[in-house]
């Protein structure tokens, strides 16, 4: 799909030029000309008051897409444990599979990870494709790409979902090129088109300023990486069974071109932000790294955990693993308390879908208030202690 200007209808009003998110339209002799930055997104089609821009159809399919069946989920494991995003993918994958009327499968690579197969069944996998081999113990691009690519050519899935983790975002692009298909990165919403049963993948672009819905009409499999923490987890059904299909694994010498010498874990535990029910998050408004101590106290009282904006991470006040947002973690706790955070779009992108947002900020015009359920204009160093005092009062009352 692309867009085309119908020159007879174009009045040279420049509305399309201003509407284009990619700066791709210029005016030449009072006619709109679509430039090479065009992605065919169609914003200009809507913007044109004279219907002078139309969508054009894309290329025809070279493969028979009907040969491809089933929804696959990449069951990413580290150290023999499934990543939390896998149950999210299985939850979402189940919905998609049901709408298409197809099966849900998981593809699992690792070394001695057979016990995870049962776990995948209980989270809804009808089939598990298992590649178990010492060389697959730790993720390596070449090894995982080869094994999964071969499985794709053999079993032809219609849809493949991977978590948009540091591993999924490495594997996904390599697989897509091998398969000659498209990949939509970091999706936050997936839907099946009721008419043609194809997948519509929605994702943020421009730092969250714009959402784009992407389709992959003529190539298979349709592939997406999915942002962790966004989809609903599959419910576990103990005792649920499925079918395991063992994949052949064989590597020639020098076929795996990288060597993992060491895996170093940070001293601090990975902040389990995606799991937290209550998050108390701090921004540059804390003024000093010590400010996080105050937030920790509040978080403890609420049974939650602390998080941060990027400004604090950049200032070295707190580790990157605590960062919420576009380039950090996406969270959706029941309660998100934003303290001294301005609410830049990149931050909002990671916390906007929290159930309840409470914002504390000195500046009444801070954009964070635009998404907050409850806003408090004030100094966090006064407000937070007051909240804690109030919490203690209640706790005391309950004791009596």
């Amino acid at each position: 799909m692309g867009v085309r200007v119908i020159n007879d209808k174009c009045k040279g009003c420049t509305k399309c030029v201003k509407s284009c998110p990619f700066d791709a339209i210029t005016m030449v002799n009072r006619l709109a000309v679509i430039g090479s930055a065009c992605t065919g997104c169609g914003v200009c089609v809507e913007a044109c008051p004279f219907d002078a821009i139309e969508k054009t159809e894309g290329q025809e399919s070279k493969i028979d897409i009907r040969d491809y069946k089933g929804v696959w989920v990449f069951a990413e494991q580290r150290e023999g444990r499934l990543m939390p995003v896998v149950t999210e993918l299985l939850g979402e994958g189940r919905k998609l599979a049901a709408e298409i009327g197809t099966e849900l499968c998981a593809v699992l690579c690792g070394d001695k990870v057979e016990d995870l197969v049962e776990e995948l069944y209980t989270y809804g996998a009808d089939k598990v494709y298992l590649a178990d081999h010492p060389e697959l113990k730790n993720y390596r691009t070449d090894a995982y790409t080869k094994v999964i690519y071969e499985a794709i050519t053999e079993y032809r899935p219609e849809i493949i979902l991977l978590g948009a983790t540091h591993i999924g975002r490495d594997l996904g692009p390599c697989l897509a090129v091998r398969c000659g298909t498209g990949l939509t990165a970091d999706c936050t919403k997936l839907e099946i088109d009721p008419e043609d049963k194809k997948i519509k993948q929605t994702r943020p672009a421009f730092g969250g300023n714009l959402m784009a819905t992407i389709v992959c009409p003529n190539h298979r499999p349709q592939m997406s990486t999915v942002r962790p923490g966004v989809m609903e987890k599959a419910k576990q059904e103990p005792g649920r069974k499925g079918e395991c299909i063992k994949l052949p694994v064989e590597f020639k010498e020098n076929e795996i071109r990288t060597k993992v010498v060491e895996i170093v874990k940070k001293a601090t535990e990975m902040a389990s932000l995606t799991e937290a029910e209550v998050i108390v998050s701090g921004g540059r408004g804390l003024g000093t790294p010590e400010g996080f101590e105050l937030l920790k106290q509040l978080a403890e009282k609420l049974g939650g955990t602390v998080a941060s904006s990027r400004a604090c991470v950049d200032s070295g006040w707190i580790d990157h693993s605590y960062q919420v947002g576009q380039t950090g973690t996406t969270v959706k706790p029941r309660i998100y308390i934003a303290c001294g955070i301005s609410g830049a779009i990149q931050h909002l992108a990671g916390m906007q879908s929290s159930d309840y947002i409470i914002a504390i900020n000195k500046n009444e015009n801070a954009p964070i208030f635009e998404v907050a359920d409850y806003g408090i204009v004030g100094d966090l160093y006064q407000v937070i202690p007051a909240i804690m005092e109030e919490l203690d009062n209640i706790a005391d009352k309950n004791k009596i």
Partner: protein
Amino acid sequence: MEIGMKVLVCVKQVPDTNEVKIDPVKGTLIREGVPSILNPDDANALEAALALKDKDPSIHISVITMGPPQASVMLRECLSMGADAAYLLSDRAFGGADTCATSTTLAAGIKKIGDVDIIFAGRQAIDGDTAQVGPQTAQRLDIPVITYVQDVQVNGDAVTVQRQLEDGYEVIEVKTPCLLTAVKELNEPRYMSIYNIVDAYKKDITVWTHKDVGLSPEECGLSASPTQVWRSFTPPTKGKGEMLKGTVKEMAAEVVAKLKEKHAI
């Protein structure tokens, strides 16, 4: 001087998404006055190459981009930071490329440059945020790729990197040629130097079309892109909630009452 290792950096010109604003009435993106910049991660990628050259001046650094003619402004900036040569892949046929098609074109350009030892790319570009073009280009060139690189040591043809993970990092060894994608933590990009700015204007920017890199128009741009943007829209905003009033104590009490209502405590 004898030319040593050849290093290539993939760079992209992007709108500064920090400056992008939404028209509150129409709900559309305001692009006017938004500056175009060198993609932040690509500045880290270029810095990694320049740091290698600081230690070994025989290293030759090329930068390559696929983009419209005005991307040459960014290439000049790269030359002013210290790159030796710049390539611009610019052609109407390249337009509308998704990551799949972009990587085809970049790989074709890189093959034409030839004999590259290390390719650096940014982890992701802030317009699309896909982080796909780096690994996909490596696949097409059939060379190993390591993404999320936060540290790099080069010793002859042996490259040792730290690959960032969510909760730590891996130490990975690889041999050249290879492609590495840079994260922000890798380094602190330098500024253009006055000396280099003057020099940069003496250097030519090589401009190639699809013919120059041996691709047919069907292999480029929109027609070679499996994914298509079906629709784009500005994200619905959640809508402002309630602003609490009163003294700090009153507001605190009210928040706690609300929390209690939500069974948070």
